[in-house]
C-alpha cells in the first residue's frame, strides 16, 4: 500500500496526487511514468510523473478525470493499492544532457500534458540548458502550475482556445511566431502532438513526442500500447514513451485510442449516474 499525502483538485477535473513511494522515487528520471491502481480490483492507470523528491520519497502526479478509473482515483484519500515504476525510458535529453548544452529547446504542453513538461524543464534548466515553454489549454479554468513552469524556463507562453487567459490561439500558432529552436519536446493529446509534429517538420525542428496510448501492464508484456514508428511496431511502455515525433504514425495512434471508448463510456456514465441512467449516451441502445 502507498500512503496518499495529497489528492486534491487544482483545476476543473484536474487533480494533484502525492504519494509516498520510496522505491519509485529512488531511480526515477524525467520522462518516465508510473502505473497506479486505486484498489485491488481497479484498472492499472498509466500516469506520467509530475515531480519527485528523492529526500522525502514523495512522488507527484497530475491527472484529469476522464473516465471511471480516474473518477475512482480522485476519490481515494488514505492509500493507493499499487504504484509501479518508474517505467519507460527517461527522456533522451536526460541521458544525453551534454549533447544538448547550448541548444535551444522548446517544450510544448497541451492540457494536463503540461504536467510531465515540468520535471523535464526543471532538470534541463538545472543542468544549464536553455528552455522555453508553450502551454496550451481550452480555457483559463484548466490552467495549472503556472508559477512552477515560470520558475523552470526562460519564456513561458500561455495560449487558450477561447482567449480567456494569455493569447487566444493554439500552441502551433505560438510556435509559428517564434521558432528559432533546435529541439521541440511535445506532450499532450495525440491530435495536438500530431499538429505540432507536422509544423515542426515544416520548420525543420527535431521533435520528441511523449506518447500515451492504452496500456495494461506497462512492462512490455501485452502489446496494447503498440505504435507504428517509422513503420515499425514499437511498444510505448518499454521502447518509449518518447519517440521521434516525425516518425510516429499519429493517425493510427489516434484510432487505437478509441478502441475501448464504448466500454469506458458506458462504465463512466454508470459511475456518474448510477443505475438511473436511461439512454442518451448513444451506447446503451436497446441492448
Amino acid at each position, binding site marked *: 500500500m502507498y500512503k496518499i499525502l495529497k489528492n486534491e483538485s487544482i483545476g476543473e477535473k484536474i487533480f494533484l496526487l502525492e504519494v509516498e513511494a520510496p522505491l519509485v522515487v529512488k*531511480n526515477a528520471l524525467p520522462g518516465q511514468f508510473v502505473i497506479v491502481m486505486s484498489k485491488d480490483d481497479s484498472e492499472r492507470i498509466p500516469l506520467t510523473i509530475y515531480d519527485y523528491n528523492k529526500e522525502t520519497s514523495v512522488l507527484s502526479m497530475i491527472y484529469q478525470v476522464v473516465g471511471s478509473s480516474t473518477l475512482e482515483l480522485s476519490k481515494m484519500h488514505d492509500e493507493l493499492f499499487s504504484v*509501479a*515504476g*518508474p517505467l519507460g525510458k527517461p527522456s533522451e535529453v536526460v541521458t544525453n544532457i551534454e549533447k544538448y548544452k547550448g541548444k535551444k529547446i522548446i517544450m510544448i504542453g497541451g492540457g494536463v500534458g503540461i504536467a510531465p513538461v515540468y520535471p523535464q524543464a526543471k532538470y534541463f534548466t538545472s543542468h544549464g540548458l536553455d528552455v522555453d515553454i508553450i502551454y496550451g489549454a481550452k480555457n483559463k479554468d484548466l490552467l495549472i502550475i503556472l508559477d512552477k513552469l515560470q520558475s523552470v524556463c526562460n519564456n513561458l507562453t500561455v495560449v487558450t482556445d477561447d482567449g480567456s487567459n494569455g493569447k487566444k490561439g493554439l500552441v502551433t500558432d505560438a510556435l509559428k511566431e517564434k521558432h528559432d529552436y533546435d529541439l521541440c519536446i511535445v506532450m499532450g493529446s495525440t491530435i495536438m502532438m500530431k499538429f505540432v509534429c507536422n509544423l515542426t517538420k515544416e520548420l525543420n525542428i527535431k521533435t520528441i513526442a511523449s506518447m500515451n496510448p492504452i496500456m495494461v501492464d506497462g512492462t512490455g508484456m*501485452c502489446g496494447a500500447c*503498440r505504435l*507504428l514508428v517509422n513503420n515499425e*511496431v514499437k511498444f510505448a511502455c518499454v521502447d518509449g514513451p518518447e519517440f521521434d515525433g516525425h516518425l510516429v504514425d499519429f493517425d493510427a495512434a489516434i484510432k487505437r485510442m478509441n*478502441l475501448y471508448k464504448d466500454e469506458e463510456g458506458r462504465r463512466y456514465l454508470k459511475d456518474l449516474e448510477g443505475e438511473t441512467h436511461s439512454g442518451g449516451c448513444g451506447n446503451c441502445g436497446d441492448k
Partner: protein
Amino acid sequence: MDEKIEMRNLDPERRSHTFEEVALGYSDEEALKEANRCLQCMNPRCVKECPVNIEIPKFIKAIREKKLEEAYNIILESSSLPAICGRVCPQEKQCEKMCIKGLKGDAIAIGSLERYVADYALEHKLNVSKVKSKIGKKVAIVGSGPSGLTCAGELLKEGIDVTIYESLHKAGGVLTYGIPEFRLPKKIVENEINLLKDMGADIILNAVIGKTITLEELENTYDAVYLATGAGLPKFLGIPNENANGVFSANEVLTRINLMGSYEEDAKTPIKKGNKALVIGGGNVAMDAARSLKRVGYDVTIVYRRTMEELPARKMEIEHAKEEGITFELLRNPKEVIIDENYNVKGLNVSLMELTDVDESGRRGVKEIPDKVEEISCDTIVVALGTMPNPIATENSDIVTDDYGLIPVTESVTNNSRVYAGGDAVTGAATVILAMEAGKKAAKQIIADIK
C-alpha cells in the same frame, strides 16, 4: 478391460460461459481405484521421465494405503507446487508416456492422482515444509512465476532468507496472469504462495527489476540473485495492418481476463466484446486464449498452419476446446489483416498451406501453396505465436543475453558468478514443470555456492 478412471469434467455447454474449473478431480473412491491399477514397478520408468523425479510409485502406494499425508510428503520431497503441476503438467508427454501399462492400454493417470493428493493437502491444510534454522544468507529472486517460487521454496527449506521481486501487483507470474482460472484456479496459486510466505518468503510487488531497482543494486544487497523473469514479451505477426484495432496478443487477452478479472460483471478493466475471434497459433497459450474468449461470448476459430496432428498443445486442452465449440482452420497461414476505414479488423487473409516431409525438428514441414489465398472474416485476431524473454531486468546490466534475448547459463550461473538464471528466460517459452526444475537446480547450485 483395465481402463483408467477419467477425471470428471464440467459439462461443456455450461463451461463455455463460465470460468469455473473444467476438470473436477477424483473422488476418494476413484483415486483408490486408479491407484490400484499401478503395477508398482521395481524400476519405474515414470520417475525417470518426470523433470523433478517425483517418486511416483511410492506416493501411489501411499494412496492405496489411504495414507494421504504421507503421499503428499513424498511428492513434496521432489516438487514444491503439486496442486499446480497436477493440473498443468503435460503428463502424457512425460511420466504417463513411460508407464508400462500404457503399452497395452491406458497409462496410470499420474497427474490426476498427484492433483488428488495435493488438493487433499490443501483442504486439510497439511503444510509440512520444514524450515532449517537460518544460516545468515539472503537471496533475491526476480520473478514470482513457477521457477522463482520453486527456487524460493528450496532455499527457504535450507534456512536461507529469500526476497522475491514481482513487477505486477499480484504474485505468481504466468500462473496468475497467463493460465486461466478454468484450468488453474487462482486460489490454488494463492495458496502455494501463502505457503512460501509462511516459510518466511518476503514478496515485494510492483518492483520492476531494471527500473524500480537495478540488478546491480540487488547484487550489492544479496549473496546471490536468481533471475526467473520468464518469457513475457509477445511476438506479433509481422504482416500488414497488425496494429489495427482488434488485433491483440494472447498475453493481452489473458492478462485482461486472468489478472484484471475483466470477465467479471463489474470489472473495471474492460475486455473488448466482439463477435468472431481468430486465434493464431496451436500451442497451449492459443488454446487458453481461445477458450477464454469463448467464455466471454466470442465465436472462436483457431488458425494453424499445420494440421491437427502437429498441434503442439496438450491433447486434453485440444479436446476441451473442441467440446466447447471452438473450431479449427488448419493449413492456413496469416498474410494480411483486413481493416475497415476506421482501422478496425474485419478479416484475415490467409495462405493455404501443404505439409512437406519431416524436418530436422521431427515435425512435418509446411509450405505455401502458390496463389491460394482466402479471406476469413472476423472482428478480432489474437496472436499466440509464442513469447520471448523480457529484457527489462538485464538490459542495463552486465548480464549477457543471446540473439534471441535468452540468458546463457552454465550450471544455472550466468556470466556473472553471483547471478543465476533459469526457466523460460533461459530456455525460451516452455512448461511450468521445466521452469520448476530449473528453479530447483538453481537453488541447489546457489546453496552449494553461498554456504
